[in-house]
């Protein structure tokens, strides 16, 4: 068949180093490496390489390297190679372009345009290695006021609260989009860290039933795996309205990925498509959302907080206000750079707004309306490191969700092809020969290490500001200054410019 465009990547094999052991042949699910007809010489083809770096990392002699396939087109800032390739793909197939992971386009990343404060002279900074530093976080609706008896006993009935030892939770990734070993690692790490993982919309696998207390269980439009015991076997419940990577559209787990195990968790037949409709068909308004929130509280007898997750979109501040008034205890806002196992390219790259702006405007709106304490705010999509976490909390988040960072910790190299189901790192796949590559014990350790390191960095940054409790940073935008931002951007973020 005539090829209209060039491969994305070029596999470079150093003949001086390659010993033709065939390790790369065994590792590549995309079948880029293969033995020649002689059965001894390893060759490679570039066409299906996604640059997942698996062969590079595992080659015992360091003989492999992936570089961009270079074949320069006539220069055009309009008709770039990527634009032309996408047109050719669609001309060949007539299909909607499908991508994975978050929006890769060079939109502004506001985290990188905000700087943190530190104490000098007027307020002593604190050394977290020697002094207590509080990053424990409680999620849930806080009462407007507390009343006590004369002997100081609490009279107010407290809404259910979620106690976390870190302001970092693992975000929704369904079993189906990622492997059972990945779910095992996430749940075990959450348990050890004193935080939570999130089932996504794929239900909870029966093997992980005992990890329910560390799980945020999701109720999405397809209602896969949702039943009374699932809802009660949880830390809290999350109604998924939208996802930052693909606001306004539903999900679609192709039948090829619905094997026996996925089928058991989602409670659908093996091989059938798992289609999550774009809307919940019992929610067409804030009033309907209220009905679902309270039905979930009814079936859990009010013991579980209910979270509503929305994508960051143009009017999200007003939407967040409505959701808070509908009775949500926690609201998660997912920015447009958030990850996904599969999303139409056009949606991923063009719909939604950055989390930084959405979070700042939502927090401000709730404050202006005097209802900020009614809900906890979770920011997602994405936070890349401890500094992003600290900035998110200063902007108004109670805690953050991480997903892409967690996957990178356990092997993901952001090749952005989760949708193919051929993840060579055993994460975004259900192929048994591939999922075996992810050791849940090692992966758990790596996740624990990552969050432990971030926790320490958060404490260091807090200490530098002379703050010994994360609660004193929440919504404390005086600790932030903008750099290289316009007046309008500063005003939406609610921060001053550096030097002011």
């Amino acid at each position: 068949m005539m090829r209209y465009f060039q491969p994305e990547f070029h596999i470079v094999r150093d003949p001086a180093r390659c010993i033709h052991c065939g390790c790369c042949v065994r590792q590549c699910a995309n079948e880029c490496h293969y033995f020649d007809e002689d059965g001894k010489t390893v060759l490679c083809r570039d066409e299906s390489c996604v640059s997942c770096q698996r062969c590079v990392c595992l080659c015992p002699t360091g003989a492999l390297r992936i570089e961009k396939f270079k074949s320069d087109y006539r220069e055009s800032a309009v008709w770039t190679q990527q634009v032309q390739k996408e047109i050719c793909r669609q001309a060949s197939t007539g299909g909607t372009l499908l991508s994975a992971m978050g929006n890769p386009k060079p939109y502004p990343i506001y985290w990188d345009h905000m700087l943190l404060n530190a104490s000098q002279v007027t307020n002593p900074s604190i050394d977290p290695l020697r002094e207590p530093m509080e990053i424990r976080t409680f999620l849930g609706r806080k009462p407007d006021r507390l009343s006590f008896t004369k002997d100081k006993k609490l009279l107010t009935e407290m809404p259910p609260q979620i106690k976390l030892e870190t302001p970092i939770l693992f975000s929704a990734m369904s079993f189906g989009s990622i492997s059972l070993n990945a779910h095992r690692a996430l749940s075990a790490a959450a348990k050890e860290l004193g935080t939570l993982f999130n089932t996504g919309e794929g239900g909870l696998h029966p093997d992980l039933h005992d990890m329910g207390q560390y799980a945020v269980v999701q109720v999405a439009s397809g209602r896969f795996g949702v039943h009374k015991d699932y809802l009660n076997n949880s830390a809290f419940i999350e109604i998924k309205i939208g996802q930052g990577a693909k606001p306004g559209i539903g999900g679609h787990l192709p039948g090829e990925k619905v094997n026996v195990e996925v089928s058991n968790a989602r409670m659908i037949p093996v091989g059938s498509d798992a289609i999550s409709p774009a809307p919940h068909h019992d929610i067409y308004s804030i009033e309907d959302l209220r009905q679902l929130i309270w039905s979930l509280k009814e079936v859990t007898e009010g013991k579980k907080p209910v979270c509503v997750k929305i994508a960051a979109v143009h009017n999200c501040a007003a939407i967040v206000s409505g959701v808070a008034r509908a009775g949500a205890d926690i609201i998660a806002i997912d920015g447009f750079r958030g990850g996904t196992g599969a999303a139409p390219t056009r949606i991923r790259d063009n719909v939604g707004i950055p989390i930084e702006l959405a979070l700042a405007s939502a927090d401000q709106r709730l404050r202006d309306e005097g209802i900020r304490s009614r809900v906890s705010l979770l920011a997602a999509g994405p936070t890349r490191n401890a500094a992003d976490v600290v900035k998110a909390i200063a902007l108004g988040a109670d805690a953050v969700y991480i997903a892409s960072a967690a996957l990178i910790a356990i092997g993901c190299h952001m090749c952005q092809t989760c949708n193919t189901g051929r993840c060579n790192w055993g994460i975004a796949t259900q192929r048994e020969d591939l999922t075996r590559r992810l050791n849940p014990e090692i992966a758990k350790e790596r996740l624990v290490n990552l969050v432990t390191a971030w926790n320490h960095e958060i404490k260091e940054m807090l200490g530098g500001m002379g703050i010994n409790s994360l609660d004193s940073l929440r919504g404390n935008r005086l600790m932030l200054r903008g750099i290289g931002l316009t007046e309008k951007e500063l005003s939406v973020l609610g921060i001053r410019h550096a030097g002011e």
Partner: protein
Amino acid sequence: MKITAGLTPYGELNRQVREALETTDTVTLENVNGQRYIGCGLDAGKTVTIYGTPGNDMACYLNGGRVEVFGNGQDAVGNTMSGGEIVIHGHVGDALGYAMRDGEIYIEQGVSCRGGIHMKEFGKMKPAVVIGGVAGAFMGEYMAGGVIVILGLGKKPEDDLFGSHCATGMHGGKIYLRGAYPEHHVSRNIAVSALNEEDQKELDGYLQKYCAYFGADMEEIKSVPFVKFTPESSRPYGNMYTAN
């Protein structure tokens, strides 16, 4: 045990029902006036009988229990239920049996829009919705499993058996229809066929229960022929995408 609902707020009423069901298996509610979530998550072996008009989300997350209503239901009856039985001596509103996974719902008369959306089945779980009258728009949209039966009993000549966009995106399950139906409302991915022996046996089981619950005449129902809707493909969107 009998409880008079009157104007008791739903939270309090449902708490009373839960408490009563700790010591008994059957609760009868009288003078119900739109209280929501009655029978929510009701477990197997428990029965709630309702006189009056229960509110939205009745028997949501039903977990094997039985709810019978002498009156009409409102919206989202049997929402996301996992098993059990709901019998309504009357008609119901929108979003009946949304995403139900198992159990049976019998409606004596008609249902409004969005009935049986995203019903699904799993292993031995196979949900069924039997509608005595006619159905509104979007019946069986996204249907992934289970059975819907629409009888059209008492249908006026100007009424259609179902509204627009019937079974849009259906990719599993069956819909049995009695008599003439509006062909222009059927979505493109639907195959229409006659019932085979197995279908007939399955349908008869549901019809017998319908007749028993509502005193309908089996012979009269069966005097009009049935057809069956099934999806032409279990992968309606299988070829939609191109990896980028």
